[in-house]
């Protein structure tokens, strides 16, 4: 089939005509465009166009929309366009094109700059609302926690033990190894730079302080958030999807004391020890870096460290870890509880749980550091 439009003998017709024969198919879109290009000027000048479907039985959507675009352009330029002898199938295609004519433009408008700004605004608003409901959640957990502390027989010890094993015991290797590695790296880098001033004997003090006050607790918290915060969100989220949480509620169980407080209690009990482990591993890494790379004998390292550190350094990290434990258990559980819908919502919840709990842990750390940095006397080197 072809586009026959030899824009026509002006002797026979005073109006340019396009004849369409047979079915105007997809594959003829290219020739159609060329044809339009070629005759545009001519049609514009004559001020009229007739498209005659007399011998046609149909038109595919792609050439139709090209033709439709041409008509629109012509009409805008004041050219009269008439479609003649079109079969019902062709007519209905043009009708439906006309109906959805401005959709593309609307969509584009919707994704305009203003939309983007609005999206930012509303996601900021949503974030704020989420923090509000997270805070409410936290208070409920603490309420349930206090209740349980007053009635210790009601504590689900079996679950607490289970989570202590999952989140504490099983985290020991990764916490130890990563902190040790970081201790080696930090010790080496710090010592290497300080050696320029012949000050490498200060390395143990600096390393010990950095690890016990920041790196040990923080790395332990990040690892626990990644391992357990996500696991809590996934566990509770899956239970939401499978209606298990609703089932617990209609059986009269308090979902906080059943699902949330055992996790928080477990983390409260294991986190301080994970932090202690992180500190010791990190310091041990530093010691190794000293002896291996800096010629700093182990005895010197230990005595320097002993001079610098005070008991508060160890205790402080363990205290901070209590705050971290509350954050991680609650953010993980909260994200799980928020799950609605299907499996993909669970995936999003686990990601959100990790990101938000790390964010909150760092925020809490910053606040605590600002508030309490002065409680420690200066390093004595």
């Amino acid at each position, binding site marked *: 089939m072809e586009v026959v439009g030899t824009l026509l003998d002006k002797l026979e017709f005073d109006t340019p005509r396009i004849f369409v024969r047979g079915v105007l198919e997809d594959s003829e879109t290219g020739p159609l465009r060329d044809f339009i290009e070629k005759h545009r000027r001519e049609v514009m000048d004559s001020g009229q166009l007739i498209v005659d479907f007399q011998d046609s039985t149909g038109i595919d959507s792609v050439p139709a929309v090209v033709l439709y675009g041409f008509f629109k352009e012509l009409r805008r330029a004041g050219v009269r366009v008439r479609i003649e002898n079109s079969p019902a199938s062709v007519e209905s295609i043009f009708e439906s094109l006309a109906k959805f004519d401005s959709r593309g433009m609307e969509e584009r408008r919707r994704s305009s700059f203003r939309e983007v700004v609005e999206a930012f605004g509303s996601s900021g608003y949503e974030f704020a609302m989420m923090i509000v409901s997270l805070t409410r959640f936290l208070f409920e957990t603490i309420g349930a926690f206090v209740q349980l502390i007053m009635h210790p027989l009601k504590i689900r010890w079996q679950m607490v033990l289970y989570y202590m094993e999952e989140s504490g015991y099983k985290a020991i290797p990764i916490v130890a190894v990563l902190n040790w590695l970081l201790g080696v790296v930090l010790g080496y880098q710090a010592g290497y730079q300080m050696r320029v001033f012949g000050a490498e004997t200060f390395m143990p003090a600096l390393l010990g302080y950095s690890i016990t006050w920041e790196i040990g607790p923080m790395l332990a918290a990040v690892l626990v958030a990644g391992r357990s915060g996500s696991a809590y969100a996934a566990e509770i989220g*899956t*239970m939401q999807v*499978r*209606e*298990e949480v*609703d*089932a*617990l*509620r*209609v*059986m*009269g*169980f308090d979902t906080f004391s059943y699902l949330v407080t055992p996790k928080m209690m477990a983390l409260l009990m294991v986190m301080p020890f994970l932090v202690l482990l992180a500190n010791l591993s990190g310091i041990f890494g530093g010691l190794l870096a000293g002896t291996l790379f800096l010629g700093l004998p182990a005895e010197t390292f230990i005595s320097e460290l002993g001079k610098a550190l005070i008991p508060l350094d160890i205790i402080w990290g363990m205290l901070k870890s209590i705050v971290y434990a509350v954050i991680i258990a609650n953010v993980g559980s909260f994200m799980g509880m928020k799950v609605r819908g299907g499996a993909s919502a669970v995936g999003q919840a686990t990601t959100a749980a990790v990101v938000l709990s790390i964010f909150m842990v760092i925020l809490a750390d910053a606040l605590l550091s600002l508030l309490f940095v002065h409680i420690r006397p200066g390093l004595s080197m």
Partner: protein
Amino acid sequence: MKVEGLQGGWGEQLVLDDVSFSVEKGEIVAIVGKSGCGKSTLMQHLLGLVKPWRGRVVFRETDIWSSPEAMQRARRRWGVTFQSGALLGNLTVIENVKLPLKEYTDLTEDEIATVAYSKLDTVGLADFADSSPLEVSGGMQKRAGLARAMALDPEVLFFDEPSAGLDPVTSAHLDDLIRSINRSLGTTVVIVTHELASIFAISDRVIMLDAEAHGIIARGTARELRDSSGDSRVRAFFRREAAEEGKDS
């Protein structure tokens, strides 16, 4: 049990408005309607999972929403079977059935086991006691959920879409089970479904919801609604059943 002037929905979206009905002791009431008409929403309000905007859900002369204690008392006398069975995935089937018994009775371990196994036997699952809920079929999960719901001999049993996701034979089997529990124990049953076969098989009374009406558009027995409803929406809903019956005969 009575529902009075209940209005409810999600966020800003009104789903149910001024819904009132009552359920008599020992009857099976089916709440029916097309998808999206608010059956699940109504169930959430009835079960005390989502607070209605307005209205009362009265059980034994008390609005369950009036206080946490009232809610707890009602829940103690209710059993709920969820669409998916909602068995706790980290426990075995029998542990799931034991759960309410452990929580609410002072029976010994052995007594709890005896009761739990007998409930599981009622639904024909005694052989699967030690399986994980995740490794038995969908129909079995629902039956196990039913056993758990029956653990404390509830006065009212609620079912959310018991037929969903089941083949017709399994679904009919579950219907028989519900009917026989209702007959032998006198348990009141409230069942949400859009499965016409179930509606005809087991319900004493039908309450039909509609999305546009935000509430009840018809009530009566299934046959009354099919044969003599003046409402075209009701007829349309039941017409498919007529077609199916024609096909069967």
